[in-house]
């Protein structure tokens, strides 16, 4: 086993070395860690806000568990899973290792994934919302430990089902069936709870459902809530017992997984290749949720010159059904439902839409396109080629804006609200798209994900300053409520066009190909 533990430690060191091998990547990663940890320490010990201005811990926990549920469901409903990467699979299956060692190495891999998922969930919520809620230093600690246990249980359970049903071609279906049944069961309980409390508002019903004993019985999510809330309320023994229960379950699942009698190397290798392909697509910023199925389409035509690039991208979207993905549709409907049931106004709803637009524009697969040499060789001007590259994204977000704002009519906006919101969002969307491409222009391709996302976010925040400042000044001077939307949209479009112009070199030289 020593050699495999050594391999795992070497790979971890290599990852750290890669992050710190480039000065920009090292600076931004360190900065991101310092900022996030600094914020948590600041919220815990130095932020003095009157208790009345802070939201209740239960609301904070609800949001935290909501994000956790979404992430867990995304893991459990994956079309396919894999135990190893291709390199690992080849090494482990050909090398002098026992089955137990091989499986334990897989579980070590799950530990890494647990930490990554936990940090994503934890930092996203704590950093964004920690300042506005009554969260103590102990709460932060317990939240982290419980999340680690919860994600580990889920990942080891997934590994367990994978190795146990390896011989069965329907193994992925079984996993989804088990979780699907559980989800349906919980929804039925919620429906019953909704029915007996139907006189209350939806947010009150959700809160009372979360407070109910039935909720605490819900696997992983309910248990996590039970642990965190008991520690928060000073019931340390109960909290400790429940947390201990979760850790014991994780241990039992690990033992069960390691004691699997046989594995199918062909299945492991096949899934490893699939996993690697998925990872490669993720690196290229391709949309992971579009699946790998390609359908044939009729009436294929390409525009002349640089326009052929846009036509090709559109064709790719048609073939992979990814113009608007299922995930994006779900996200849209989810935000609409939250806004509707929470009595948010149209202006607040449009801020939600701006967040969705930011998420969607980040997933545009420019890297994929830029890794093919044809874009550099096509005899057309760089600006036209860049515009062709961005056009499908611009078209996509424009359609999403119109679609979402039209659906948002149920919130009762005036016609001027509707037009102003569309203008404002279009400005934001163009700014997000152009910031994304400009960050690609100024960053090296080898930059790690944390650093590049942080830089992208930073660019967007800085780019938004002029429009917000100008919009506020004009609105304050002229006292016209809708002026802010139009002014900010105009300024954002101008800045976006400047970014696009500055990025044109990205399609003329191609160091990105390296």
């Amino acid at each position, binding site marked *: 086993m020593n050699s495999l533990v050594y391999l795992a430690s070497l790979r971890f060191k290599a990852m750290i070395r890669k992050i710190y091998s480039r000065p920009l990547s090292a600076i931004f990663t360190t900065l991101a860690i310092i900022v996030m940890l600094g914020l948590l320490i600041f919220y815990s010990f130095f932020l003095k806000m009157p208790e009345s201005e802070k939201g209740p811990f239960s609301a904070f926990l609800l949001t935290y568990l909501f994000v956790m549920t979404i992430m867990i469901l995304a893991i459990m409903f994956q079309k396919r899973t894999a135990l190893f990467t291709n390199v690992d699979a080849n090494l482990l299956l050909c090398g002098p290792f026992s089955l137990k060692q091989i499986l334990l190495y897989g579980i070590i891999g799950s530990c890494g994934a647990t930490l990554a998922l936990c940090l994503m969930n934890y930092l996203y919520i704590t950093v964004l919302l920690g300042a506005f809620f009554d969260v103590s230093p102990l709460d932060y600690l317990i939240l982290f430990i419980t999340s680690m246990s919860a994600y580990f249980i889920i990942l080891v359970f997934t590994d367990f089902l994978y190795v146990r049903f390896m011989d069965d071609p329907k193994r992925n279906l079984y996993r989804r069936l088990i979780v699907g049944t559980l989800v349906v069961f919980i929804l039925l309980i919620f429906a019953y709870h909704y029915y007996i409390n139907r006189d209350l508002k939806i947010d009150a019903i959700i809160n009372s459902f979360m407070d109910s004993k039935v909720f605490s019985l819900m696997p992983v999510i309910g248990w996590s809530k039970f642990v965190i809330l008991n520690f928060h309320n000073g019931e340390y023994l109960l909290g400790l017992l429940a947390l201990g229960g979760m850790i014991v379950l994780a241990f039992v699942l690990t033992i069960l997984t390691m004691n699997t009698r046989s594995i199918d190397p062909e299945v492991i290798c096949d899934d490893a290749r699939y996993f690697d392909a998925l990872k490669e697509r993720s690196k290229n910023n391709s949309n992971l949720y579009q699946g790998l199925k390609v359908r044939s389409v009729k009436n294929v035509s390409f*525009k002349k010159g640089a326009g052929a690039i846009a036509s*090709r991208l559109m*064709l*790719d979207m048609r073939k992979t059904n990814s113009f608007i993905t299922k995930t994006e549709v779900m996200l849209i409907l989810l935000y609409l439902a939250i806004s509707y049931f929470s009595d948010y106004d149209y202006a607040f709803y449009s801020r939600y839409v701006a967040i969705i637009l930011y998420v969607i524009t980040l997933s545009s697969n420019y890297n994929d396109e830029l890794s093919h040499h044809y874009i550099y060789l096509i005899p057309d001007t760089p600006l036209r080629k860049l515009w062709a590259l961005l056009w499908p994204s611009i078209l996509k977000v424009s359609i999403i804006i119109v679609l979402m704002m039209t659906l948002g009519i149920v919130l009762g906006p005036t016609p001027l609200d509707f037009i102003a919101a569309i203008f404002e969002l279009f400005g934001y969307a163009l700014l997000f798209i152009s910031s994304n491409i400009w960050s690609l222009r100024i960053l090296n391709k080898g930059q790690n994900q944390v650093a590049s996302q942080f830089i992208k976010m930073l660019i967007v925040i800085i780019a938004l300053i002029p429009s917000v400042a100008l919009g506020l000044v004009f609105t304050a001077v002229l006292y016209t409520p809708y002026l802010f939307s139009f002014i900010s949209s105009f300024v954002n479009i101008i800045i976006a066009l400047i970014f696009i112009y500055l990025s044109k070199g990205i399609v003329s030289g191609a*160091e990105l*190909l*390296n």
Partner: protein
Amino acid sequence: MIEVKGLTKKYGNLIAVNNASFEAQNGKITVLLGPNGAGKSTTIKSICSLLKYEGEILIDGYDNHSLMAKKRFGYIAEVPNLYDNLTVGEHISFIKRAYDVKEDEHIEKLIELLELKDKINATAKELSKGMKQKVSMLLALISKPDSLLVDEPMIGLDPKAIENTLTLLKRLKENGTAILLSTHIIDMMNDLYDVAYIMNKGKIEAKVVKDELGSETLKERFFEITEGSENE
């Protein structure tokens, strides 16, 4: 015609190509010959404007970054780089429109020569590596380029495809195309080349003109210069 003057390409402290100057004339096959890591592919990619470099590169007298130059050359990459989800036919339509090519006749002939007729509706990810290489070749020739840059052309091809490729390159040469290809497979080049530049450790070490070589073979001259060295 391709003219390379004082080409230097550095990756950090590593000098991949060091002050290389040479030319590839119309109607001739010019070969960049060298061991692994000699800088051949880097040179080809620089000519295609796929890398940043120091020096000057002209295609038919135009700077290689200009539109006029881009319209005049075709490039066949060492590793075929196709769009996974597009069929072969869609790749052809894409390049035709991108280069504004109106005629179809020569494309039909190329499809036939490269034996791709029954693969027109196959997506790139369904093709074998050799088939992908053939498609890559076809795409580079759609615009009838005056200059053709080929990076390790025979890798991944079966014997028949190699034979067809050699025939194709000879035919293009007869039509006046300037062909610059990089390879380390010397034996295959004996019948093909007109001029060979031997590269080693990023430098052009020698120019060998076939008609002036006398009794010595290209292989003998190559090993004389490189001593079979393997570069880092």
